[in-house]
């Protein structure tokens, strides 16, 4: 059935609707609200006074038959009834006029159902249920409407059955009775019956004669005096005869907006805005207003709250160990372990060894880990903390002081009875492969062909501290290295604890991200943050701790630096304090942040603050993809034609999806080739291979574009779709990546920005005269194509890699080898992102840029 025409659900429309409500409807609305407000006080019970109570009906109380629709049980009842009655009443009034409505609703249309109800309830059912509320009007008007609908549109069809439309209020009635427990079925029913009768016209005679009304109106000049008054005459002009109307253009403003050709011009600017805001956002982060001071979340840690006793005679032990190890300088890994194992056993610890062999970039990385477990006197070996000391650090310096210090600490720890977690000492030959092999095997996630299983184990690892102490002599500060593989980070609480213990308790300096000097001002903060982002974006292992983090074991490497007065014992006390804190943990570190950017040792931004910047950059691609999709659906030439149409049609042309999908799939699948090549080529061939690849890579887009034009001759629409799909994929991958490795996503997003703003060269405005091929314009087009190919080559992944290497002064071969090692040993996925996300998007973008759409205006027609 036709419901009153409530335009849309937008607020302005609602306002305009309310402002156009006619007089009687307004009055009734006001009356109902007033009665409700009066009902709030207790001295005069409005409900008892006005409700329709069958037993109370007499001559004195006939007013009840008129007041009861205006009184409601509670606010909820009122709101519900208002929502249904107001539109219906408004419709009735604007059709019959204000005076008629007044006469009818304070006369027959209220009293008849009321008396009918009283009659049935009292005399037939013998009950006495009071009723109130405007729902009786609602049903009455529903009934009248239903009859009218029935006249124009007698049936609606459900599958093959015809159902008369006048029954629909009955269904509503039954639903109401079933769903709203306190509703009066009989009350609603009599309303409905009277509504039907009114609709059928049997009681039309009750309405006051028009002539009389017109006379009254004329005499009293009612239409002029009363606002919102609906005259009897107005009804002849239709429902909204004189009232302001909003039907027409504004009723479909959303549709109107959709058809505006300007809407298609917007997305590039929107994309640009996203990028600009994203980048600016990033540079705002170091300000005090955006970053926060760090704090310890996990109460159990209590960093720096215990006395540390590591000193005194332990210094002699340290010197003795150092002396022993000095003799082992230059010895092989096995000899080293042969010598050390009895020493560790002598401390009363269980020891074991583990072999590992990795093959990467034509090299073999092999070695043997030695590890020992100190069993906690106060627990059952369900949890453990790890102390790692590698024989060589990541810069291939010998860890001269680190290993003796670790041994001394273990000897010292053994004397204490307060450990509630096992302590595992891991001595590895190098800083990357050894720890990785050990952690993999500890979690049974190793490949048994390359890495031996561990003969003895302890409980779940709760944390790990690695010592990188290659410096001789006294030191000034401690450098905390915290970047894990693939940009994963340890829980911020661990870093905070170390900062607290080293900086607060021991009084030594603490540095992060190789910022040896830090004045805690904007430039230094920014530099720290960007360094951290670059490291996390590259995703390489930065120390022995890196391998632990993917297994959800929070770990950092501590490295003393500078020239000061702190000695080895101070370093040992820092580690002791940290271990005491970790020992306190009741559960895994989980309270504090896992995603953060540190910009000073005590300042950070959390994921909620920095994520929008990467997401905005990723969103720019998605926006453009959506815009291109919409654009590809418009008839060609609509935007470039000479006479620009005022509005675009919402009718879309069919899109031919298969060629674009094929091209994008091809680009994506080609990406497996560089990924495989660079991860499996031997070390010495990496540099020449890279040179050959770069050359081929420069030639690939023109070649691909040429073949594409020759084989399929894509239309402009298809080029739009190629770009749309490729950008959609890029945006999708980058926003996913932003949740895993924010800096990498941001970096790739930034270097891919040109891809957003590409379009086929021959579509560029100045060359739109390509339909008239003159030699000069075609040669200029040729020159522009060459230029474009060169520009694209400049932002290609290999070129960016080369530029990066030149900037930091490292060899390409070294970078590629490090990447291959990281891929095989640590499972770094940076390569996958570069070759399978960035490179295909670049390739597809280049193909689009060099594309020559088939004769414009011929349409995509298929």
């Amino acid at each position: 059935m036709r419901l009153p025409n409530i335009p849309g659900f937008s607020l302005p429309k609602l306002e305009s609707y309310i402002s156009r409500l006619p007089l009687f409807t307004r009055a009734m609305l006001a009356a109902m609200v007033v009665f409700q407000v009066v009902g709030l006080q207790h001295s005069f019970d409005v409900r008892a006074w006005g409700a329709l109570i069958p037993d109370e009906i007499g001559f004195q109380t006939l007013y009840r038959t008129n007041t009861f629709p205006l009184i409601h049980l509670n606010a909820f009842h009122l709101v519900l009834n208002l929502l249904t009655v107001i539109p219906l009443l408004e419709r009735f009034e604007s059709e019959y006029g204000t005076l008629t409505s007044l006469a009818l609703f304070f006369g027959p249309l209220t009293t008849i159902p009321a008396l009918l109800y009283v009659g049935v309830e009292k005399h037939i059912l013998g009950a006495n249920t009071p009723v109130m509320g405007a729902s009786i009007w609602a049903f009455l008007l529903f009934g009248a409407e239903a009859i009218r609908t029935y006249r124009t549109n007698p049936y609606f069809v459900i599958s093959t059955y015809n159902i008369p439309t006048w029954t629909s209020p009955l269904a509503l009635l039954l639903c109401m009775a079933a769903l709203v427990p306190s509703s009066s079925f009989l009350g609603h029913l009599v309303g409905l019956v009277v509504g039907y009768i009114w609709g059928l016209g049997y009681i039309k005679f009750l309405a006051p004669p028009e002539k009389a009304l017109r006379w009254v109106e004329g005499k009293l000049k009612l239409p002029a005096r009363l606002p919102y008054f609906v005259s009897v005459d107005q009804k002849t002009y239709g429902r909204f005869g004189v009232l302001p109307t909003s039907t027409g253009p504004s009723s479909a403003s959303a549709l109107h907006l959709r058809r505006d050709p300007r809407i298609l011009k917007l997305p590039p600017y929107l994309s640009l805005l996203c990028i600009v805001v994203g980048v600016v956002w990033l540079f705002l982060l170091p300000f005090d207003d955006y970053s926060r001071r760090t704090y310890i979340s996990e109460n159990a840690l209590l960093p720096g709250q215990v006395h540390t006793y590591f000193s005194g005679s332990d210094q002699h032990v340290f010197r003795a160990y150092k002396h022993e190890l000095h003799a082992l300088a230059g010895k092989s890994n096995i000899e080293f372990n042969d010598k050390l194992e009895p020493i560790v056993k002598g401390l009363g610890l269980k020891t074991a060894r583990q072999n590992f062999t990795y093959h990467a970039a034509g090299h073999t990385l092999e070695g043997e880990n030695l590890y020992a477990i100190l069993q906690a006197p106060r627990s059952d070996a369900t949890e453990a903390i790890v102390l790692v000391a590698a024989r060589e650090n990541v810069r291939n310096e010998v860890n001269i002081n680190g290993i003796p210090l670790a041994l001394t600490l273990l000897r010292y720890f053994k004397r204490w009875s307060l450990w509630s977690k096992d302590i595992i000492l891991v001595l590895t030959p190098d800083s990357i492969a050894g720890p990785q092999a050990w952690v993999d095997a500890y979690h049974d996630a190793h490949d048994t062909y390359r890495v031996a299983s561990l003969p003895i184990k302890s409980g779940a690892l709760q944390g790990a501290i690695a010592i990188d102490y290659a410096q001789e002599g006294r030191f000034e500060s401690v450098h905390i290295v915290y970047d894990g593989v693939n940009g994963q980070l340890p829980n911020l609480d661990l870093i905070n604890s170390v900062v607290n213990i080293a900086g607060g308790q021991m009084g030594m300096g603490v540095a992060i991200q190789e910022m040896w000097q830090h004045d805690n001002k904007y430039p230094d903060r920014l530099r720290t943050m960007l360094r951290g982002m670059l490291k996390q974006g590259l995703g390489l292992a930065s120390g022995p701790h890196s391998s632990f983090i993917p297994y959800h074991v929070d770990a950092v490497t501590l490295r003393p630096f500078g020239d000061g007065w702190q000695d080895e014992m101070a370093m040992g006390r820092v580690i002791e304090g940290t271990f005491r804190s970790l020992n306190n943990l009741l559960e895994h570190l989980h309270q504090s942040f896992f995603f953060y950017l540190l910009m000073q040792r005590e300042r950070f931004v959390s994921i909620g603050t920095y994520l929008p910047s990467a997401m905005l950059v990723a969103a720019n691609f998605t926006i453009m993809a959506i815009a291109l999709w919409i654009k590809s659906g418009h008839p060609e030439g609509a935007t470039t034609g000479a006479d620009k149409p005022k509005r675009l049609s919402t009718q879309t042309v069919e899109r031919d999806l298969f060629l674009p999908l094929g091209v994008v799939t091809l680009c994506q699948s080609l990406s497996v080739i560089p990924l495989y090549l660079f991860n499996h080529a031997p070390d010495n061939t990496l540099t020449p291979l890279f040179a050959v690849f770069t050359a081929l890579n420069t030639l690939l887009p023109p070649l691909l574009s040429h073949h594409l034009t020759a084989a399929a001759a894509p239309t402009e629409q298809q080029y739009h779709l190629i770009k749309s799909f490729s950008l959609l994929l890029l945006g999708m991958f980058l926003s996913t990546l932003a949740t895993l490795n924010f800096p990498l996503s941001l970096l790739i997003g930034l270097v891919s920005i040109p891809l957003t703003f590409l379009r086929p060269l021959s579509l560029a405005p100045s060359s739109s005269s390509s339909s008239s091929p003159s030699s000069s314009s075609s040669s200029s087009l040729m020159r522009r194509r060459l230029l474009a190919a060169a520009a694209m080559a400049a932002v290609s992944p290999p070129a960016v890699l080369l530029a990066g290497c030149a900037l930091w002064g490292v060899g390409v071969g070294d970078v590629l080898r490090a990447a291959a090692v990281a891929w095989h040993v640590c499972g770094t996925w940076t390569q996958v992102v570069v070759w399978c996300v960035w490179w295909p998007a670049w390739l597809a973008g280049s193909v689009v840029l060099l594309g020559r759409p088939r004769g414009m205006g011929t349409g995509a027609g298929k």
Partner: protein
Amino acid sequence: MDGGKVTQGRTAGLYVGAAVLRLAIFTLLPGLPDLLTGRVEISTPVTSFKRLQEGLFLYNHNVSPYDGGVYHQAPLFLPLFSLLPSFSNLPIFTYLLYIAVDLLSASALWKIADSGEAGSAALFTSPRRDKRWSGYVIAAVFLFNPFTLATCIGRSTSVFTTCAILHAIAKAVSGAPFGALVALSFATYLSLYPLLLLPPLALLCYDRQRPERATKSAAKFTSICASVVAGVLGVLFGMSYLITDSWEFLVSTYGIQLTLSDLTPNVGLWWYFFIEMFDSFRAFFLGVFWLHLSCYVGGLTLRIRRQPLVVLTLLLGIFAIFKPYPSISDTSLFLALVPLYRHVFPLMRYTFLAASVIAYASCLGPAFYYLWIYAGSGNANFFYAVTLVWNLGLSLLVCDLMFAVLRDEWEVERPEMAGKEIRQI
């Protein structure tokens, strides 16, 4: 996109191509099948291949496969898989079985497409029916759909259900009601929920009966359908009883679907609700969820009475969203049937949106699951939020398809409105 001439060679090429691709993935990437088998998006407690192995081990050692509460699949899988050479020694036979099942599904889909039922049903003929894809294209879309591939590589046993449902529909459109009902009974036996497809499938069979042996009376036809399904199910249950020597399997296979006692996460909407729920409300909400799932059957069957295949398609889409243990395999079945409606694609309004949402969700889902389970830096809400988005995308697609089909029907009734903009009030 017309598919060109479908020759014997092209047909064979498609099937061989699909088979070779699958075999190549199985053999060249040996780690991938096990990785995919472990993914919650592919393997649910009622379809997991790992759990099947467990059940098989117990079965082969004469222990009840349902001991230990790991195996929740139909008992007849056990003799089938124990007939194959052992998976640990000769996995190739298992691979071949799964590949064959996928190809069988594709051939059923091909039959459905070629019947033209989607464009011109017995009671309704779409004016747009000329624009359609051939069976070749539709089978290719199914076979090379990444979701289908992942399901096959992950060796989820839901491929058998998919195959049975597609065959039921294929039989129904080719006028073989008995075969259709038997296939549906098999699907029901394997996964329970296909029983809800019985009303529209019976209507499809009824509409598509061969005139020479048609049963005109609707009541008679209904009773025949019901009795055939009941009979076949009875036989299957009897065989299962003989195999396992107890009726325990009923509780372990269908009971778990009805009561959701295994709360392993999946792409559906149930697990999170029932993790959060207090036990006292559990029974009530189980009732509500099942009622919700089944209430679509009656409404859609009545409303789109003239196109039963549409009802089947929409219901499969709805099941892929609201079933107790959905996986991407259910999505792949729904997506297999959607291309049959090529003729109403121009009427659909949100294809790009739905496709993007589904693509985004399938990218973010594994990432958030990783953050939750492995990295420990996320939590269950991350993954659940993505499953919500995923299901939103699917429901957009279902609604949009329904809109397009209804609009198509409506334009036949009101030819003057064809192509005009309409507004829903």
